[in-house]
């Protein structure tokens, strides 16, 4: 998956990557050439006492070194350029794709997961690419080149590599086999201990109310001991690694000197070549270790790549019509014609055979138990989902035939979970109409019963709103979200159970104010609370995806058993009796 993703996204940067590979190749050759020159200095200069030769060769070495350094810097330049460009492109590709997703894809992949994919996962791939282009490319070239050079120096002595390389690989492998499972289990134990601590912080009232501090402490104590003993084992395994590798490398040096000495003595090898050989062996081993260290990154990058790929290859289920049809006017009329809706693979449809017409100036409430399909019904209007069968018309035109932006432009949505964007009160309110005047904003705040707290906030309209609106209370957030929809002046208002965080007094004042504001619009309210919807022009009672009753409060109290049940449970049978 990683390879496929990189092949696609590296393609525009083939030139950069080619340059990097060529430069790294040259650089490696230069690096491997240096010990050769050193051997020459020893063989032809020092042993023969030829000082001018030493100077000449030394000067040449310096030249090689300069070239090598410059090439390395140029290589880093192109490698960074390629890696960061791919990261940028991937991020943009994921973001663009998610923007076109419908609610179906958002639900399937999950908001939190999409955020991670768009940020951390791309970061992982980018990091991997950067390291791959700078270090990983060099490792095999260095290893192969080192072996060739070592063989050139002396074939017999190169036999040492056959012994040393497997030892190092074995050592690393053992470390991995022993360490990685323990390491993973340690991660789990850290998560566990953090979970216990989080519960203690979040649940501090309950813990104290039930006097369970000793219980919590015991729970923590065992988690802490467990973590400590595992962490100790992991660390004790890993501390073997470094000294062991050092020992192997040093012993290799000693072996080279011993066997090399014999070859030198029998005249099969000049002494300078022993030194050169030693350097090659070290370079081979270092590049091996480097490669091993890098390989650890592969599974992580691979997992990230797979997650990114899933987003990029997901086709949004809602798309722009090929032959768009613009409605002639924005009346706010919404018609359901035999509308059914079901999730693919779902056992039974969420909504079944709904037919009704909602007209401009009308306030329609939808009520029903959990899972009765209320929110789904509302979500069909802005085409967050498409109907499975039947037709849904807005302003007389099937929503699937309208340009998406046009459809959305007539809708004012207040979702169940009021969400505010980081910025100011004003920037949030102008979300749907960037040209709205301050007066218009205050007017909307008045209706949403939000004037008081907004004027009390420091800066008023210009007061800061944190991302997600976390610096205002739940009720304030909902009122601002409602004001935001009002500023847009849509012809269709969709309120998805958005009065729940308001106390009943604010709720009723808000609805009263809204009444006059929405004279020329269609208002749909999904609610849990009967008092919120009692006075709607029409109440639609949903039960398991079907209309179980439709009419005014009074009518439904007469005719609908399901509605009466709901009213009784909330206002209390005693209260009505």
């Amino acid at each position, binding site marked *: 998956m990683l390879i496929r993703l990189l092949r696609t996204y590296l393609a525009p940067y083939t030139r950069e990557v080619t340059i990097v590979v060529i430069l790294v190749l040259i650089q490696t050759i230069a690096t491997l050439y240096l010990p050769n020159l050193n051997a020459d200095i020893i063989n032809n200069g020092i042993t023969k006492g030829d000082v001018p030769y030493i100077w000449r060769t030394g000067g040449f*070495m310096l030249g090689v070194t300069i070239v090598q350094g410059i090439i390395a810097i140029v290589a880093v330049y192109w490698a960074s350029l390629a890696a960061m*460009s791919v990261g940028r492109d991937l991020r943009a590709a994921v973001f663009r794709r998610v923007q076109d997703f419908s609610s179906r894809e958002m639900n399937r992949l999950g908001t939190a997961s999409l955020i991670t994919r768009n940020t951390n996962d791309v970061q992982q791939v980018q990091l991997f690419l950067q390291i791959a282009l700078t270090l990983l490319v060099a490792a095999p070239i260095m290893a192969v080149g080192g072996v060739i050079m070592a063989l050139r120096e002396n074939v017999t002595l190169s036999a040492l590599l056959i012994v040393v390389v497997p030892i190092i690989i074995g050592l690393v492998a053992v470390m991995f086999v022993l360490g990685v499972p323990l390491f993973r289990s340690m991660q789990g134990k850290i998560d566990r201990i953090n979970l216990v601590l989080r519960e203690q912080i979040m649940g501090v009232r309950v813990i104290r109310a039930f006097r369970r501090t000793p219980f919590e402490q015991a729970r923590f104590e065992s988690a802490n001991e467990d973590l400590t003993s595992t962490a100790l084992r992991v660390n004790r395994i890993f501390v073997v690694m470094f*000294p062991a590798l050092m020992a192997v490398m040093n012993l290799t040096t000693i072996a080279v000197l011993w066997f090399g000495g014999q070859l030198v003595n029998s005249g099969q090898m000049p002494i300078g070549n022993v030194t050169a050989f030693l350097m090659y062996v070290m370079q081979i081993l270092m590049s091996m270790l480097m490669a091993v260290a890098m390989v650890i990154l592969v599974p992580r990058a691979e997992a990230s790549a797979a997650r990114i790929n899933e987003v990029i290859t997901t086709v949004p289920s809602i798309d722009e019509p090929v032959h768009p049809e613009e409605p002639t006017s924005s009346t706010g009329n919404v018609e359901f014609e035999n509308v059914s809706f079901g999730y693919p693979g779902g056992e039974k449809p969420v909504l079944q055979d709904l037919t009704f017409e909602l007209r401009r100036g009308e306030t329609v409430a939808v009520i029903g138990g959990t899972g009765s399909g209320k929110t789904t019904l509302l979500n069909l209007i802005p085409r967050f989902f498409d109907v499975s069968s039947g037709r849904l018309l807005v302003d007389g035109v099937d929503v699937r035939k309208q340009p998406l932006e046009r459809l959305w432009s007539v809708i004012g949505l207040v979702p169940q979970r009021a969400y505010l964007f980081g910025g100011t009160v004003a920037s949030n309110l102008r979300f749907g109409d960037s040209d709205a005047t301050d007066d218009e904003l205050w007017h909307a705040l008045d209706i949403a019963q939000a004037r008081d707290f907004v004027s009390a906030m420091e800066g008023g309209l210009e007061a800061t709103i944190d991302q997600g609106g976390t610096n205002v209370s739940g009720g304030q957030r909902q009122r601002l979200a409602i004001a935001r929809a009002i500023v847009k002046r849509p012809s269709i208002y969709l309120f998805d159970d958005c009065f729940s965080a308001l106390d009943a007094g604010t709720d009723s004042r808000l609805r009263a104010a809204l009444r006059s504001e929405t004279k020329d619009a269609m208002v749909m309210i999904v609610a849990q609370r009967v008092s919120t919807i009692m006075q709607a022009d029409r109440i639609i009672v949903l039960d398991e995806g079907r209309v179980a009753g439709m009419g005014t409060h009074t009518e439904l109290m007469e005719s609908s058993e399901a509605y009466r049940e709901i009213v009784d449970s909330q206002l209390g049978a005693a209260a009505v009796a």
Partner: protein
Amino acid sequence: MINRGGVGGRGPAGGGGNRQMGWMGMGGPPAGKTKNLGATLRQLLGRLRPERSLIALVVVLGSASVAFAVIGPRIIGNATNIIFNGVVGKSLPAGLTKAQAVELLRQHGQGQLAQTLSGMDVTPGKGIDFTLLGEVLMLAVGVYLVSSIFTWAQGYILAGVAQRTVYRMRRDVEAKLAQLPLKYFDSHSHGDILSRVTNDIDNVATTLQQGMSQILTSVLTVVGVLGMMFWISPLLALISLVTVPLSVVVTVLIARRSQKQFAAQWKWTGSLNGHVEEMHTGHALVQVFGQRSHAMDTFQDHNGRLFDASFKAQFLSGIIQPALQFLSNLNYVAIAVIGGYRVASGTMTLGDVQAFIQYSRQFTMPLTQIAAQMNLLQSGLASAERVFELLAADDESPDRVDAVALGEVSGRVSLEKASFRYVPDKPLIEGFDLEVRPGQTIAIVGPTGAGKTTIVNLLMRFYEIDGGVIRLDGVNTRDASRDDVRRAFGMVLQDTWLFAGTIRDNIAYGREGATEDEIVAAAQAAHVDSFVRTLPHGYDTVLDDEASDLSSGQRQLLTIARAFLADPSILILDEATSSVDTRTEVLIQAAMVRLRQGRTSFVIAHRLSTIRNADLIVVMDSGRIVEQGSHAELLLREGFYYDLYNSQFTSAWDGDGQVAQTASLKSVVTR
């Protein structure tokens, strides 16, 4: 909640995996600043005190291992000399003395070679002395093995020191959590406390495990290597030292520029991630409010800036390595040339030159490591400081030593002239009197944010009243232990706190040592039993953190079951306002009514039926108690409650409803 990378990857020590990445060139997040370095360091050292003898041992082992590692190249150099001597000796005719050989070479016009020879220990005609070479190499084997063993032993002991220290630190922090007053939790963000007790401690663990030993080894190595270099050749040592300040200057110059870019990279990563988070979270809103292209523009802007910064950061930090490499090569050439010259002139041996080259390579590595470790140490100390801050926070006032034992409580509660304020200059509750007889129900009502939980805080002694007295069965709650007071209460809050464990354990949380039968009985009373039995694992179903199979209503029922099991004489209930489906709602209502039977109850009420049937209604607004009385009394008073009640249970959709409701109200009052 988006995990901001804090609990992400971890190194073997249990933290800081990300920072290792940083070392490899990504650049970690900017290290936090320590406010008071000296004090933090002292406290951290104080924490290491119990391990001081082991730490001394670690230092000794570390020094020994470095000493042996530093001697190694010198011995290897000797081995090279032996080989070289053998090579040269073999090329000379046998039977001559060294002096004769030198003379012979001079006569043949090879003055330079004669010069070299004069500085060597050569027996003409004799090849490599393998006995001697073998001995020297065996010595090298021994030295290197001992060094490795010491390194390992040091790491092994240090792991224990670090882990035990962190273990104690975690334990103390957890114990501290139990001693902090509720005020601390309410006035600090939970995220902040959590990050102190998790991420920061993990960070300290990494610093202790990796930082300490590496800094120690690096410093010792620098000293040792420098000593060896001067011992072999002061001239070459000085030449090598020239490259050190050069390396430092180059690194600092480049790092200063790259740090700026890394900071910019983190800044733009932050704003980009923030933007992505917002746009994905508000996905539907962005679409309906026509903000897609605007969102994309902002994204592309941030993305472009991020690219700029990260490209520059990567490139600049990428230069450091080749630049240092170049300097090190420069040094290498200088040593080779000058060393070669001196070998040729007979003032130095080949082995020494070789050893010297090795030393000069070993010299630069620990220097860069120290620099890298300083960053780690800095962030570790900043974390340690944050942990110490938590540990230094004020504890809850202790229970009285001569606390009155409360025993079984009948449920009589009285508040006499109670006063309380969260902030000293903002009086909230002043001279509040309340008399509750056993079994009565008190409804606490008021608009959102009226401070209804304040009463709960005071009754449960989560906060202490500033004046007046709260009595339980006539006993001043301040004279009793907190545990005794809380034993009398049961609590069902809207925020349904359940811990990660089985359903059984969560219900059993209500009372220590409850039997299975009691748990099931409580579950039945709270209408929990029936739905639990439909779950595949029944009572053994594990509730995990957030995502669980239970609806919010079912979670609420579980907390009611917990209260049933606790069987308190006084109840504190918080009626749900949030989305609970109708059928569960009926069950919750029924369960709460049953739970209240025979107990004194304080209900934060939202339901008309609850409020009207309450024995006493306490009306709150803006944190204060504004009225109290029965439903009928309060309505007749036509005060705050009257308005609240009217707006709450009458409709404003049209005028008719208002009339209708008011009429029914009147009938209620007069009834």
